[in-house]
């Protein structure tokens, strides 16, 4: 079972290759089944991995038995594996949803979805900073191709901006890695955490430059202000089912910030501890404000959801900036909740756009949707979760979040901004729901085309994803415990150092 940790990365890779080969490459039906099954298998493997490390502590795996810190290691702690589960689940839902017909809009949807899953899971599980770069590139190139899945003019423009921006981001990432390697002589995260504390003299400034360059890259991926401008255009233009899968990608940026700035530049780092916090606080608050304004100003439901992603990133980064265990635990719970809720909103926006004909999902009065009951219920559930009203997980997250930031010095700025932002979300979502579902013209004469109806697969996907906020409320206590444990392990970088170097001694 020691190889279990590689499965969340290897299974999607295998799936991607199988899906490209003849028997699957020819038959769409077979491709759909294999893609869904492999996503499910990845989900099961991640869940097994989580149960293993919850009982036995974090796991390290030296790839090719090259000894750390020289070889590349995979490192699984509860945070990383929980996010792997989240990603695999999200991929499963979007693949099932896309199997109703969205996968026919372009070629290679299923293999690309699996390559994206591989990149994201790899980015979560890696214990090596250069390997993180490689997995970032894997997930980015899959996302570039997925973004271009549907051929239209505006998507090309959005994609061009997205690709150029991310290529510049990758260059900065490499420069940061070069600086850090030049100073520390290692890129293994645990080893870096160990060596950062030993720096002296001018090397401290160099390491600081390297660390802050990394922050720029991760902030770009996470869509933190002022590097967020690509997000509404990209997510608004991508096919909604693909945007739903992209909901995890900003969280990869947030995860990388958490990993690097609490593990490597954490409490043990001496003069370099907490170098990011001073920057993260103001940026997080401004991101919240701009996201909330964007939510209010959005003209269609997809842009609204894209701006909700920005609001969630602002909230998450504020929690990361607080830099204590309690806040990190909230961030983990909130990260899962907000990813699922935003993705669900993208899927619902897709259904609404399909069923309203020409006006699509624009928030104007028009003919009603074909299935008002199903979509209405789904929309209400997703909206309640996103706005943070009881009884769904948004409310639990909000309460816990306010509680965690209560003692902090900055709470007097954070509370009003956060609460106003969630008020803005509530207002925007109620307004959207009113114009989408209530202010419609009767449409007895109109015939809907057959392919706009939800059908079994889409309904199942929607039900599956909307069960999560409910389940996260029902099982709030165990999840709370798990998040606390994951946060404790993340903050105590000695755990990672011990685990990684225990492996080195064994060999």
């Amino acid at each position, binding site marked *: 079972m020691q190889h279990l940790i590689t499965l969340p990365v290897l299974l999607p890779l295998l799936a991607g290759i199988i899906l490209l080969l003849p028997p699957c490459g020819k038959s769409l039906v077979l491709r759909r089944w294999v893609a869904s099954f492999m996503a499910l298998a990845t989900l099961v493997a991640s869940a097994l991995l989580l149960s293993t490390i919850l009982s036995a502590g974090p796991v390290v795996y030296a790839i090719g038995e090259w000894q750390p810190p020289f070889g590349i290691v995979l490192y699984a702690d509860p945070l990383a594996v929980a996010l792997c589960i989240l990603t695999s689940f999200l991929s499963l839902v979007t693949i099932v949803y896309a199997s109703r017909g969205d996968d026919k809009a372009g070629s290679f949807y299923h293999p690309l979805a699996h390559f994206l899953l591989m990149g994201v899971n790899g980015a979560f599980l890696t214990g090596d900073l250069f390997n993180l770069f490689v997995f970032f590139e894997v997930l980015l*190139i899959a996302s570039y191709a997925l973004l271009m899945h549907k051929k239209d003019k505006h998507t*090309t423009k959005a994609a061009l901006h997205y690709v150029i921006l991310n290529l510049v981001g990758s260059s900065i990432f490499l*420069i940061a890695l070069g600086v850090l390697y*030049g100073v520390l002589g290692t890129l293994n995260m645990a080893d870096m955490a160990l060596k950062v504390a030993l720096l002296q003299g001018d090397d401290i400034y160099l390491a600081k430059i390297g660390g802050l360059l990394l922050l720029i890259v991760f902030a770009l991926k996470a869509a933190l202000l002022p590097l967020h401008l690509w997000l509404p255009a990209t997510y608004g233009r991508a096919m909604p089912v693909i945007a739903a899968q992209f909901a995890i990608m900003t969280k990869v940026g947030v995860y990388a910030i958490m990993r690097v700035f609490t593990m490597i530049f954490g409490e043990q780092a001496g003069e370099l501890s907490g170098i990011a916090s001073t920057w993260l606080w103001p940026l997080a608050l401004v991101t919240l404000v701009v996201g909330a304004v964007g939510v209010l100003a959005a003209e269609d439901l997809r842009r609204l959801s894209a701006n909700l992603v920005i609001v969630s990133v602002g909230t998450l980064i504020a929690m990361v900036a607080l830099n204590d265990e309690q806040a990190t635990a909230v961030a983990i719970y909130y990260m899962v909740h907000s990813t699922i809720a935003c993705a669900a909103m993208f899927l619902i926006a897709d259904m609404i756009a399909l069923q309203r004909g020409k006006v699509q999902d624009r928030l104007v009065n028009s003919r009603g949707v074909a299935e008002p009951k199903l979509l209405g219920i789904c929309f209400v559930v997703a909206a309640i979760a996103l706005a943070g009203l009881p009884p769904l997980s948004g409310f639990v997250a909000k309460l816990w979040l306010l509680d965690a930031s209560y003692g902090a010095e900055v709470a007097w700025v954070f509370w009003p901004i956060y609460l106003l932002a969630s008020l803005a979300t509530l207002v925007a979502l109620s307004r959207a729901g009113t114009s989408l579902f209530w202010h419609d013209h009767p449409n007895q004469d109109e015939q809907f085309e057959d392919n706009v109806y939800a059908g079994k697969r889409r309904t199942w996907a929607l039900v599956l994803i909307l069960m999560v906020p409910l389940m996260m409320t029902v099982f709030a206590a165990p999840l709370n415990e798990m998040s606390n444990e994951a946060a404790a392990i993340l903050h105590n970088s000695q755990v990672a150092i011990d685990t990684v170097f225990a492996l080195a001694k064994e060999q």
Partner: protein
Amino acid sequence: MELLYASCVGLLVASGIYLILRARTFPVVLGLTMLSYAVNLFLFSSGRLKINQAPVLGQSASYADPLPQALVLTAIVIGFAMTAFVVILAIRGRADLGNDHVDGQPRATRATKGSK
């Protein structure tokens, strides 16, 4: 040698950034390429500059660090793939948007649209 090396990297980065800020896709692609060359050179130098020393233990009195060389190799491969992708995307953009501007339309037409 250090001075020459550092100025080369700096010059490449400067020209890369200048080209990336241009309005048409071709200079932008060239800029990205130059930036990735600069980054590769920079990564290579993070293992310190040494002449005539093999990255193998016991071959010479001191040895060159092999890890940055492996990193550079990976970075070159990835950079190559990404450049190929962005070139194709730029050609697609030229076909779809009718011109080769990064923003989808030349500044002149945008200005007239605004004034209408």
